[in-house]
C-alpha cells in the first residue's frame, strides 16, 4: 500500500442534487440534509460511491436531494434493501435514512435484525415523534398524552426507546444528534460512517407543522455529560436513565462487522452439476 494517497478536495455542494426539497419551511430535515453533505465532504467520498437508501415518509425523501446513488423504496424496509446492497457491494458507503414511523413502527423488526447483523452501514433516523406526511398521527416515539385526531386524548402507550433497543440488539455505534446543530451532526455522521459495523444515529429533527412544541428542543438539548464508552453495561445504564436529549456519541463498540466472503468463482460452474450425475 502506498503511503501517499491523493484525493479530490470536496465541498458539501458536490453532494447536493438540483432538486428543491419538498419539506415544510422550518422542517428539521433541511439541516439533516446539510449535515449529510458536510459529512460526505469531510470524508471526501466520491458521490458515486455512496448509496443513500430510504423508505417512506418526509425524512425518506432525502436520497433524491443528494447527488449520490439513491433508493427510495417501500415503507419500512430500507434496512433490508440496504443489507442486500452492502453485502454484494462492500466497496460502497451505504447510508440508510428513515424516520420514527418508517424505522420504528412498520420497520421495527428490520431494525432489530440490522443491529444484530452488524453489516457495515450507517442508519440515520430523523425522529420527530409524529407521522408528518400523513398529517399528524402518533408514532412509536410520541408521548402517551399527545392528542391527535387518530388518538384523541393521546395514545396512552409508552414510547419506544430506540437507543436502548439498538444497544440490546447489537448495534456497534450509537449516537444522538439534534438537527439544529448541523456541524456537530456532520461530525458525528462522519464518525458513524467511518466506524465499522452497524452505526445508529438518531437525529432529533423537529416537525414544526404538527409538533410546534418541538421548536423548544433547541433549548433542552445538551451535550452528554459523560464521555463515550465501549462498555455495553455502562452504555445500557446511561441510555436507560437518559431523558432523550443528551447529544453525542454514546456508545462505540468493537464487534467485527458481518460481511460474508464475496468474490470470484473458485470453480467452473459445470462442477456444481457433479452431485447430480449418475
Amino acid at each position: 500500500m502506498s503511503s501517499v494517497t491523493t484525493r479530490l478536495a470536496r465541498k458539501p455542494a458536490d453532494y447536493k442534487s438540483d432538486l428543491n426539497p419538498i419539506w415544510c419551511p422550518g422542517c428539521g430535515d433541511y439541516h439533516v440534509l446539510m449535515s449529510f453533505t458536510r459529512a460526505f465532504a469531510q470524508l471526501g467520498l466520491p458521490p458515486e460511491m455512496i448509496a443513500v437508501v430510504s423508505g417512506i415518509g418526509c425524512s425518506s425523501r432525502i436520497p433524491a436531494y443528494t447527488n449520490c446513488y439513491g433508493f427510495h423504496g417501500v415503507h419500512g424496509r430500507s434496512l433490508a434493501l440496504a443489507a442486500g446492497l452492502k453485502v454484494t457491494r462492500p466497496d460502497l458507503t451505504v447510508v440508510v435514512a428513515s424516520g420514527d414511523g418508517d424505522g420504528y413502527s412498520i420497520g421495527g423488526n428490520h431494525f432489530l435484525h440490522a443491529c444484530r447483523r452488524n453489516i457495515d452501514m450507517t442508519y440515520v433516523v430523523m425522529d420527530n415523534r409524529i407521522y408528518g406526511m400523513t398529517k399528524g398521527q402518533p408514532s412509536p416515539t410520541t408521548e402517551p398524552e399527545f392528542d391527535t385526531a387518530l388518538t384523541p386524548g393521546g395514545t396512552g402507550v409508552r414510547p419506544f426507546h430506540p437507543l436502548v433497543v439498538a444497544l440490546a440488539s447489537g448495534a456497534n455505534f450509537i449516537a444522538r444528534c439534534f438537527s439544529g446543530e448541523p456541524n456537530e451532526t456532520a461530525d458525528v455522521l462522519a464518525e458513524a460512517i467511518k466506524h465499522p459495523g452497524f452505526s445508529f444515529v438518531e437525529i432529533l429533527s423537529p416537525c414544526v407543522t404538527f409538533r410546534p412544541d418541538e421548536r423548544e428542543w433547541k433549548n433542552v438539548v445538551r451535550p452528554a455529560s459523560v464521555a463515550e464508552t465501549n462498555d455495553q453495561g455502562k452504555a445500557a445504564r446511561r441510555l436507560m436513565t437518559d431523558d432523550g436529549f443528551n447529544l453525542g456519541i454514546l456508545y462505540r463498540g468493537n464487534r467485527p462487522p458481518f460481511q460474508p466472503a464475496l468474490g470470484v468463482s473458485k470453480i467452473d460452474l459445470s462442477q456444481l452439476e457433479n452431485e447430480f450425475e449418475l
Partner: protein
Amino acid sequence: MAASPSISIAVIGSGGAGALTTGNFLLEVASSAGWHGLFTRTLGPQIRGGEAAGLLRLAVHPVDCLPDQFDLIISIDWLNAHRFGNEIKVGPQTLVISDPRGGKLPPLVTESGSRVVEIAMKEIAKSIPGGRANMIALGIAGRLLGFTIEQVLAPIEKQLGDKGAAAVEASRAGINAGFEVAAGIRFEAQLATPVPSHAGRWLLSGNDATALGAIRGGVRFAAAYPITPATEILEWLSPNLSKIGGILLQAEDELAAINMIIGSSYGGTPALTATSGPGLSLMIEAIGLATAAEIPIVIVDVMRGGPSTGIPTKSEQTDLNIAIYGLHGDAPHLVLAPQSVGDCLFTTQWATYLAESLQTPAIVLSDQFMGQARAAIERPADVAFIGARTIAANIAGAYKRYALAPGGVSAMAIPGMPGGQYTADGLTHSERGVPTSGAGDHLAQLDKRRDKLDRFNFGDHWASIEGAGDLALITWGSLTGAAREAAGRAAADGLDVRLIAPRLLAPVQPERLAAALEGVKRILVVEQTHSGQFLRYLRAHYDLPAPVRAFHRPGPLQITAGEIHRAIRDWR
C-alpha cells in the same frame, strides 16, 4: 407376460420408519441401472410420528407424473396409512407386501382385491444387529423388480455412508436378507430394457434444478426465509453460491428477503429469493416496487395448498391469480411456470435471463409436486440464456435512468459509475427518476413498462405445443406431464389430442396461442385449482375459438393422467 414400460412402487410406513429412505434408495438403484424414474414423498406436516410414503415410478422413458395405480406396495407398517385416503391407488393387479406385525390392513388394500403376501420384515430385521425393516423392504423390492443383488447394493455408500460403517454393514445385511426372502414371490410386472442415454443422466429434485438454473442464468445473491416446500432451493444455493463467489443471506422475514434481493440487484448483482404462497403474499408490495423502479429480480414460488397456511406439504396451482394479478396499480411483470423436474432448470434460467433483459421482476411458479420430487432424467441441454442487463456506459451529460428508449428498456447505471447517480423510486417518476404526479410522465412510464414486455420476442419457449389433433388440451406447470401421458392414451384410443402448455403466463401471448389453436374444434382446460383460476385467466386474455370445457379440482392429490384421459373420453 410382456415387459412394462413403467412400474410403480409405494413404500409405506409411519414417519421415522424409513419408508422414504427405501424409496429414494430404490430410485438410485434403478436410475444407476439405466431407467428413468420419479420419486415423490407424501407425508403429513409432522417431522416424526405421522404418515410417510415414498411413491416411485420407474420407466424406460422420462416420466413426469405418478401412475393411476401402483404395481407393488411394500408396507413396513400401516399405523397411519388411513391418512393417505385415496392417495395411493391399489387394484386387483397390485402386489402388496405387508408385515403381519405392522397393524391391520387398511381399506385401501382390503377393498382392492389385490394379492397380499405377508413377510415379517421387523422380525427379520431384529435378527440382524442394528438391522432396520426398511432395508429388508429394499431387498425385497430390488428382487421383485428384477435387479441383481449387486445392483441393489451398489449405491449403499452414497446413500448411507454418512451414517457410519456399522450402519452400512447392518443395511447391507438387511438388504441381503430381504433379497433372499423375496426369492419365491411371484411378481409379474417386469421393466423393459432401458434405453441407453446419450446426454448422460442426472438424479435431482425440481428444487435442486431450480437453484442450478438460477445460477446458470447469472444469479449470485439469494435472500432466504425458510418455508415449506421451497426451503431446499435456498439450502442448495447457500453452499453452492459461496463456491462461485456469491452470497446467501438469511432474512428476518419475507419482507426483508424480497427487499434484500432488490438491493442486491440495484447494486448490479442478479438476485433471487424462493418462497411459497404465504411468503409471496408478503412480498407482493416490494415486487411492485421492483416493477416501478425497474429492478430485475427473480422470485420462485413453490406452490402449496392454500389459502392461508393451507396444506404446506402438498401441491396445488392456486397461486396463479396472485402471481399475475396480485400487484396493486398497473404493474406488468413476468410470470413463468416450469413443467417438470428437469424443466425447473430451464425455466428458472430463462426467467433470470428475461428479468435481467427486461429489468423487471420474474415470478416462477413451481409447485410442491415437482419441487420436492426427485427424478432420474436425461441431462438438460445447456442453453445460452445468461443474464443480459442493459448497463449504462460512458455516461455524459444528464443521465436519464428511465429514458423512453425504443423497446422500452433503458440503460441502467450501477452504483459506482460516475455521472450515473440517480434515485430508484417507487413513486411515479420522470425519465430522470424525479418523483412527479404529472399525467404525462405517469402515462409515458406506464407505456414504457408495458411496451418493453409486449414488444419482446419470447420465441418458441413460451409454451410446449405437441400434436395436431382438433381437441386441444390446455394445461400448465407440473400437470403437463400427466396431460402428455393422457394425450398418448387418447391417441391409442384413436383420438389425436393437441397439447398446449404455456411456460410463459405473463405477459400473455394472444397471437401465439391463436396460432397454436388454429383448427381446433374443442378445448379442454386442465388445472389443479378449486375455482378454475387458469380457465378464467385464459378466458380473460385469449380468444378461445371453440367450445371449452374444464377439468379442475383442488389438491392435495395431484391430478393423474388417468383422470385427464377420462375427462377426454367423457367428452364425446
